């Protein structure tokens, strides 16, 4: 059981508060989705949580250890981080990119040890990339590339995963396949904190929703407790109809307010 707890995270840039007093927890077997409009501070929250950005106050603790005191490698062995996707600099092979997930375990490309090679193979298989393993990443589709990045995060075999918009710019089928992969990781005992823009997708896959606006976490709870038409108005400024039936939540956005 691994637990990440953050208390009172606050980040200022040029005297503007990007994040104020964010407090949250993430445990094993839990999928938490962060929802909020653009500029709500979602990415800043993730970066603060991981100690990647200077904070005015607050601390985040993983298994009793302050993240600020961990070296980047120590942190990376506890939490995988999947930032918003940036193009890869070189046309590496799929296997090499996935192998970079083993960086914190000391793996060097082309000379993987047994344990590392095993973890990489497992991740490639879990993400359905076996057929693509030796392909160059510069001629993959967006959906395939998203799976490669996710496999890279899986290969690290960390107890926790933090992902920033892992399904952005993907078609519905690929959104579902990535969400499935995250769900499987969590059902296998991992804990995941994921920024999403698709509210219905989040409601379907997440155990808890974390609602953000103007640098603050305004609500934190199960989809049932927190996903309402009022919330949609309050957070996104849209008029939406929210219905719960046997197949889950149906969120229909009618108009912008």
């Amino acid at each position: 059981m691994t637990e990440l707890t953050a208390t009172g995270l606050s980040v200022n840039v040029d005297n503007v508060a990007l994040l104020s007093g964010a407090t949250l927890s993430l445990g094993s077997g839990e999928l938490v989705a962060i929802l909020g409009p653009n500029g709500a501070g979602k990415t800043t929250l993730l970066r603060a949580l991981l100690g990647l950005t200077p904070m005015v106050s607050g601390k985040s603790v993983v298994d009793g250890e302050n993240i600020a005191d961990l070296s980047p490698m120590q942190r990376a062995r506890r939490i995988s981080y999947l930032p918003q996707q940036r193009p890869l600099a070189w046309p590496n092979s799929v296997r090499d990119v996935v192998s970079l997930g083993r960086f914190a375990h000391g793996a060097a490309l082309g000379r993987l040890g047994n344990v590392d090679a095993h973890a990489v193979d497992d991740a490639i298989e879990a993400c359905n990339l076996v057929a693509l393993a030796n392909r160059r990443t510069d001629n993959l589709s967006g959906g395939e590339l998203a799976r490669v990045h996710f496999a890279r995060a899986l290969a690290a075999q960390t107890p926790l995963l933090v992902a920033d918009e892992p399904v952005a710019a993907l078609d519905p089928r690929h959104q579902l396949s990535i969400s499935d992969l995250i769900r499987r990781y969590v059902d296998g005992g991992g804990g995941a904190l994921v920024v999403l823009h698709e509210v219905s997708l989040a409601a379907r896959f997440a155990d808890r929703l974390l609602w953000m606006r103007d640098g603050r976490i305004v609500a934190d709870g199960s989809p049932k407790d927190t996903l309402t038409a009022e919330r949609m108005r309050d957070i996104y400024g849209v008029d939406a109809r929210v219905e719960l039936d046997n197949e889950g939540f149906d969120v229909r956005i009618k108009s912008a307010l």
Partner: protein
Amino acid sequence: MTASRLTFFLVVASIIALAAAATLGSTPMEFSRVVAAIFGRSSAGDMIVVWEIRLPRALAAFVVGAALGASGAALQGLLRNPLAEPGVLGVTATASLAATFTLYYGVASTWPYTLPVSSIAGALAATALLAAAAMRIQSVVTLILLGVGLSSFAAAAMSLLLNLAPNPFSLSDMINWLLGSVANRSFEDLKITAPFIAAGIAILYLSRRGLSALTLGEEAASGVGLNLRRQRIAVVLGAGLATGAAVALAGAIGFVGIVAPHIVRPFVNHDPARSLVPSALLAGLILVVADIGVRLLPTNAELKLGVVAALIGAPAFVWIAIQRRAIHD
């Protein structure tokens, strides 16, 4: 061909090229005489030709190439751009400018380390400036433009020094720096500069794993556990030491740091870490061969190595730039 086989092939080719460089020249010498001279069992004349003229010159070309090749590969990994190179980024020009200063004021001859140390200081200043800018500037294109600016400024300052040269001797000294050459280098020169080059390459070699991680971009690289600050410092220090010392030994020789890694990359799965050593070897090999060519070409005045490198390298730079499918930023 895998990375290790490529490395083996390049080592063999480099040894052959160095042997050829010791054999070929204006005084015809059979290979057996060269071998005898290398092992000290030959006439005094042969010994001088091999040990004091050809070998140090060939080794200087190799060492300078290795320094520039490794620096180029490392800077390309750090900045995630195949066009990054000590020459293009203005590191070579800044180092030459610093070296030219010592020639201008005639202090280069007072202490054998004056010129190397100032040249290394110039290179370190330039690489540090670039790395600091890289932290604030996300666009690699902007960064390369910064290098172009740095280069232009160093060239302008150098023109000023040439303009104000106190006497024809320092003027010709300085022009030699601008052109770049390994002619008349001695083992003494190598002894002074090679340790800095070795230290620089060693630093780059030890930090090479981080270059692979940077393939993912800086954010994801720190996500997988890379200490970005330390990585930047290592590359700045390594490339600065190696390039600065290379400039001290041979003056400004451009583009070899772009061309060699570009040729190597497809053989090493485009991994910047695995391209480091082969790039150093190939760049060394290229300069040794180019220097043999420079010596054998029947021109009135001997061609300068830096001139030839630029004549071949600049079109190659343009070619690589045009070939890029997309600019990632």
